[in-house]
């Protein structure tokens, strides 16, 4: 049962083969057994969770169920949830209890889905390995000595270990797609502005976007129907008509023009990853897709641009943690300034501090034009690369990450090496485009483990339905997405 999709479990609930309370309890039991080692969840609240399941059963009995009613979903601990501890992976928020619900939490609640618990993440979503979490590292279920990716590493590991039916993530520079790739699941970052950021603890506001992490594209389409929609409480939320993201799932792919950016297959891409991605592309040709060579010439610049813009926005966003209204306050301090400085020094971890310092520096007097403005100018060049590319193709494909999951501790001490993990994902956030990763196969590690490889699919603005169509067609023809790691029975 644990390997069933949201769609299948939903049908079982609707058909009264199982109740939401039973299903939820099954996943809670699995969490009890497997989470102490994997550490995918930071906070559980079984009473609250089971009360929600009970309510879902009532909705189903009353014939008021929706596609997600009664399904247990892991929520990334970046989303504020009323009455739930919400830590964002930080000591700063170790005791923070959400006083309200994030938009995404409200939407899942309204659909009747069950909040199974809050998943682990890199502190304030800053990281690509889940090693910066104050609440400990997360194991990759495919090889416990390796990282699950980040920042939505807890969500990815939870879905991979079948501790939940699906989970939510957020993606500022690749934080949904890269862990999805490393853990062998499907993850989608929507077009910027489709999902509300209200109640999602801010990292880099002009890049942050939430999205689904699930076992299949069909499941992600169901979740997209819940997650997206206008919210007046988010000033960047787009007021568009609601879409049904399942509408194009079964369209044939014949004639689909797929762009292959030469920069995504150049130096820096691991040979084992390249091989799997090429095989996936061959499969797409069989499905009738047509390959087009394209170029995204400014790809390399996306990393320096990102490491100006994201820290700059973060330094501003994280200034709210002052030890006055909520969050950590130092035990001992002198005057007000000392209280700020000590509370923040104690509450933030090393990577978060580094990014705040970088952001503070690039925004400081005299440097604004050289760094921030320059980065925003190059950001436009990067967006124009995609605009030009989409004149030649419908969607773009390439690797999600340059390598498979790396060993825990391998790059933890070298921020620049860690940043290069996001070389194929960051430009998508800078341009505000939708991007997703789907399982495309495995590459063997040197010690014989099977490590998942993700195929990235990038669409034009608001083209999520077409991307999901492309992903679903592939998942009908292959079974990479249904494979499970060993040792999670």
């Amino acid at each position, binding site marked *: 049962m644990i390997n069933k999709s949201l769609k299948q479990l939903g049908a079982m609930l609707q058909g009264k083969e199982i109740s939401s309370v039973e299903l939820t309890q099954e996943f809670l039991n699995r969490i009890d057994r497997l989470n102490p080692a994997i550490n995918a969840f930071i906070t559980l609240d079984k009473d609250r969770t089971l009360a929600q399941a009970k309510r879902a059963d009532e909705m189903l009995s009353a014939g008021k169920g929706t596609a997600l009613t009664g399904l247990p979903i892991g929520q990334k601990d970046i989303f504020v949830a009323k009455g739930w501890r919400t830590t964002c992976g930080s000591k700063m928020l170790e005791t923070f209890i959400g006083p309200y619900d994030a938009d995404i939490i409200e939407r899942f609640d309204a659909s009747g889905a069950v909040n199974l618990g809050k998943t682990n993440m890199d502190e304030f979503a800053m990281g690509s390995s889940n090693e910066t979490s104050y609440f400990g590292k997360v194991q990759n279920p495919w090889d416990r000595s390796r990282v699950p990716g980040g920042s939505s590493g807890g969500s990815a590991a939870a879905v991979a270990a079948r501790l939940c039916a699906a989970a939510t993530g957020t993606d500022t520079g690749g934080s949904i797609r890269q862990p999805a790739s490393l853990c062998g699941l499907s993850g989608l970052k929507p077009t910027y502005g489709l999902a509300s950021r209200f109640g999602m603890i801010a990292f880099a506001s*002009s890049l942050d976007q939430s999205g689904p992490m699930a076992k299949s594209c069909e499941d992600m389409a169901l979740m997209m129907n819940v997650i997206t929609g206008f919210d007046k409480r988010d000033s960047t939320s787009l007021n568009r008509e609601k879409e049904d993201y399942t509408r194009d799932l079964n369209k044939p792919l014949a004639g689909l023009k797929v762009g292959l950016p030469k920069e995504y297959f150049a130096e820096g891409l691991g040979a084992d990853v390249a091989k799997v991605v090429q095989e996936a592309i061959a499969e797409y040709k069989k499905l009738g897709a047509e390959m087009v060579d394209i170029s995204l010439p400014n790809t390399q610049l996306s990393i320096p641009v990102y490491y100006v813009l994201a820290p700059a926005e973060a330094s501003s966003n994280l200034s709210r943690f002052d030890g006055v209204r909520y969050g950590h306050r130092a035990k001992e301090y002198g005057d007000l300034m000392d209280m700020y400085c000590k509370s923040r020094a104690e509450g933030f971890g090393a990577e978060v501090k580094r990014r705040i310092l970088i952001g503070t520096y690039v925004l400081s007097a005299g440097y604004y034009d050289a760094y921030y403005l320059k980065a925003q100018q190059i950001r436009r060049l990067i967006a124009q690369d995609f605009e030009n590319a989409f004149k030649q193709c419908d969607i773009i494909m390439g690797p999600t990450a340059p390598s498979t999951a790396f060993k825990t501790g391998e790059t933890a001490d070298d921020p620049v090496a860690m940043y290069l993990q996001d070389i194929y994902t960051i430009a998508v956030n800078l341009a505000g485009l939708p991007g997703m990763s789907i399982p495309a196969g495995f590459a063997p590690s040197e010690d014989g483990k099977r490590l998942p490889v993700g195929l990235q699919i990038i669409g034009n603005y608001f083209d999520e339905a077409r991307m999901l169509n492309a992903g679903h067609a592939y998942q009908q023809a292959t079974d990479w997405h249904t494979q499970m790691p060993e040792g999670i029975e």
Partner: protein
Amino acid sequence: MSLNSADIKRIAHLARIEVNDTEAEATLSKLTGILGLIEQMQAVDTTGIVPMSHSQDVTQRLREDVVTETNQRELFQSIAPSVEEGLYLVPKVIE
């Protein structure tokens, strides 16, 4: 642009984060690496390019100037580090 340990302390003060000398030294090497990465931008000619802050061409929405929020002081102060009689407590700033 190369930084030194004193620069780190100055930036940390602007960011309201306390750093001691050892931390400043350790941070210096990491930040120098990151700034080296960022420096790649300077090779690009960006003359005349309009900076991009958002991907969609959107303007700030306006709303009616009416009260929309209710007072939830007790709820919000229940998670504050230090409060008294409805006020947030901080060290004395005015003698």
